C-alpha cells in the first residue's frame, strides 16, 4: 500500500500519506483516496514517507486541488524532503499549496 488516509475525529482535516514513490503508478490510489469523500475543511498531503515525486504526481496534485475547491481549496503539503521541496518550488506550487 503506497498510500494511507486518515480523517481527524471532528471530520475537518483529511490527511493523505504517500509512501515510497509518488508517480503515475499511484494515480488510481490517489484518486480513490479523495474521491467520494465528504468535503473536509482542510487537506494535508504528508510526504514524510515519499522518496520520490515525478511530474505526473504534480499533475495529480493539481487535479486534487481542483476537485476539492480549486482556489478555495485548503491543502497543505507537509514533511517533503528537500529535493521534493525544490521540485515543488521550481513548479511554483508554493503559490497553490501551503508547503510546510
Amino acid at each position, binding site marked *: 500500500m503506497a498510500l494511507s488516509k486518515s480523517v481527524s475525529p471532528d471530520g475537518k482535516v483529511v490527511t493523505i500519506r504517500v509512501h515510497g514513490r509518488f508517480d503515475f503508478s499511484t494515480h488510481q490510489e490517489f484518486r480513490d483516496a479523495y474521491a467520494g469523500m465528504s468535503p473536509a475543511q482542510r487537506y494535508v498531503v504528508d510526504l514524510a514517507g515519499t522518496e520520490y515525486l515525478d*511530474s*505526473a504526481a*504534480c499533475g*495529480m496534485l493539481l487535479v486534487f486541488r481542483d476537485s476539492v475547491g480549486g482556489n478555495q481549496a485548503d491543502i497543505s503539503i507537509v514533511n517533503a524532503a528537500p529535493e521534493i521541496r525544490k521540485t515543488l518550488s*521550481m*513548479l511554483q506550487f508554493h503559490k*497553490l499549496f501551503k508547503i510546510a
Partner: protein
Amino acid sequence: MSGAAVPPPDRLSSVSGGLHAAQDTGALTVLIVDERPEDRAALSHLVTAQGHRAVATAAGPAALQAFLREHPDLVLLDAASDAERTAEYLRVLSGDGFVPVVLLMPAAALAAPVDAGAWDRLGKPVQPEVLRAKLEGFARLRRLLHTMRLQRDALARHNQWLRREYQVAEAVFAEVMHSEALRSPHIRCLVSPQAVFNGDLVLAAHRPSGELQLMVGDFTGHGLSAAIGAIPVADIFHGMTAKGFPIPEIVAEINQKLLRILPRGLFLAAALVELDAASNTLSVWNGGMPDVLVTGGEREPVRARVASHSFPLGVVETAQLDCTTRTLQIGKGSRILLYTDGLTEAENGAGERFGAARLEACLGRGDDCLPTFERILSDLQDFRGPREQADDLTLVEVVADPAVNRHHTAAAATEAVQPRAAAAWRAAFSFGVDSLRAFDPVPSLMHFLLDAQRLHAHKQRIYMVLAELFTNAVEHGLLGLDSAIKAGPDGFSAYYREKERRLREATTGEIRVELEHAACATGGRLVIRVEDSGPGFDFAAALRMAEESHGANGRYFGRGIAAVRDLCAELSYHGRGNRAEAVYLWHSAQPGS
C-alpha cells in the same frame, strides 16, 4: 484515415464470437484411407452415423487426391496401407492447416511408439464409443484452433493497422517538430528517443530581426498524451517566432492553448530563451524547468543562472502567469545550457541521482580537452556505470556567437512565396500607452502586411524598418530614453529596466502608424510612417552629425537607423522630428536575395 480493409481495434473482440456460432454443429469431414473395401464401408457407416461426413478411399495417389479435393478435417489412416509414407505426405499437404491423422492399427500394436506423421491412434476393429469420443475431441480442438487462427490474423491485421497509424503520426510529428534552426553549428542538442517518448521537446527559430529563440520543454505524463500536446506548442512557437513575436507573448499564447486542450494534471514545464548575439543580450523565461545556466565559455564554470520564476504552461490562467523574461548581458562566446530533469535524475546502481551539483561541477573542469557538452555526457556515463538503461535526457547548448543571429535557414522556406500584384491601399493605426504596455504591435502589423501584399521575401527587411522606426518612436520619442545608457558595462539591461519603468509610469502618449502601399513602375512602393506624440528632436542637426560621422555611433542615428537608411529608398523626418517616413520599394521580379 487509413484503408477500409483493416478493422479498427474495437471490432477485434467480436471475431471469436461470430466464429463460434458458425462452427457450432461440430460436423467434420472425415477422410478414411483403407485398402480393404469392407473396412472402408464399416468405418464410413460409423462416421456417418455420428453425424459427420465420410469420404473413403484406397491408399496412395487416390488418397492424396481425395485429401486435396475434400479438405477433410480429420484423416483415419489404416496402418497397414503404407501408412508412414502416406501420413508424411498428408502432413506436408496440410501445410499450415491443422488436419490430424489418426492411425488405425491392430489393438495389440497400440503399445508401440507413435509415428512421426500421426496425431493419434485407434485400435481395430474400431469401437463406436471410442470413435465418437475421438471425433468429438478433435472437433473441439479444431474449433479452438480455428478461433485462435482468426484471432491471430485479426491481431496481425490490427498490428499492421497500428504500425501504419504510427508511421503517419511519426511523419506528422517530425514535420511539425522539426526546427531547421537547430542545425546551426552554434547549437548542440541531444534529445534521446526515450526523452521524446516522455514528452521532451526542443524548438528553435529566428525572429525576422535575426535573434534566435529557443524552447526546451518537458510534458508531464508519457507517450502519446505528451506527444499530442507538443504539436500545437511547436506550431505556435514556430509561427509566432517567424512573425517576430517576443517570448512573453509566445508564452501567453501557448499557455492559453494548453489550458484549453490539455486535461487537468497534464502540463508543460518549459524554458524559452531569446539570444540577441549582436548585443549579447539573453532573455529567459523559466516555468518549472531546472536553472538555465550560462557559462563564460568552453570549459568555464557557471557565471549566471535563471531559476524557474513562473508556473509551468497549462497550469494557471494566463492572467496569473508571469510571462516576463529575465534579461542578462552575457559575454561573447558564452555557453547557454538548458536541460530537462531526466539528466539530473539519472540514477546509478546505488539509486543515487546525478544531480545538479555534479552537472555544474562538469562545467568548470578544464582538466582535459573535452568540450563542455561531451564532458557532461561522459561524466554522466561514468556516474551511471555500465548498466543497461534507457536514456531519458535532453541537453541543449547554445554558443553566444554573433553568427547565431545570421542563420536564416528557417526564413528560406517562406522566401518562395510570391508577392501579390501591387495594389493601392492605406491602413492607419494608433496605440496609446496603455496598449503599448499590454503588447508589442509590430508583429501584428507585420502579419497584416504579409497577408495584404504577400511580401514574404521582403519580410526581414520590412521588419527591420518597421521595428526600428516603431522602437525609436516609443523609446526616444515617447519615453525620452537616451541611447547613451546602453554604453555602460551593464548597458542593455540598464536601458531596458529604465524603459520598463518609464513605460509603466507613463500616463499619456500615443504612437500612430500609417502603412501606405501603391503600385509603381517596377513593382510596389510601401510607405511606412511612424509618428509619436513626444517633443521630437532637431533632425536636421542630427542628420548633419550622422553625415559627418558616416552614420556610425550618432546619438540619434544609431546602427538601427543606419540600417533603415540602407534598406529604404527614402528616409525623412517631418514635423518637429516626431514623424518618420520611410519608403520601401520592391520589384516584382526581384528574387528574395
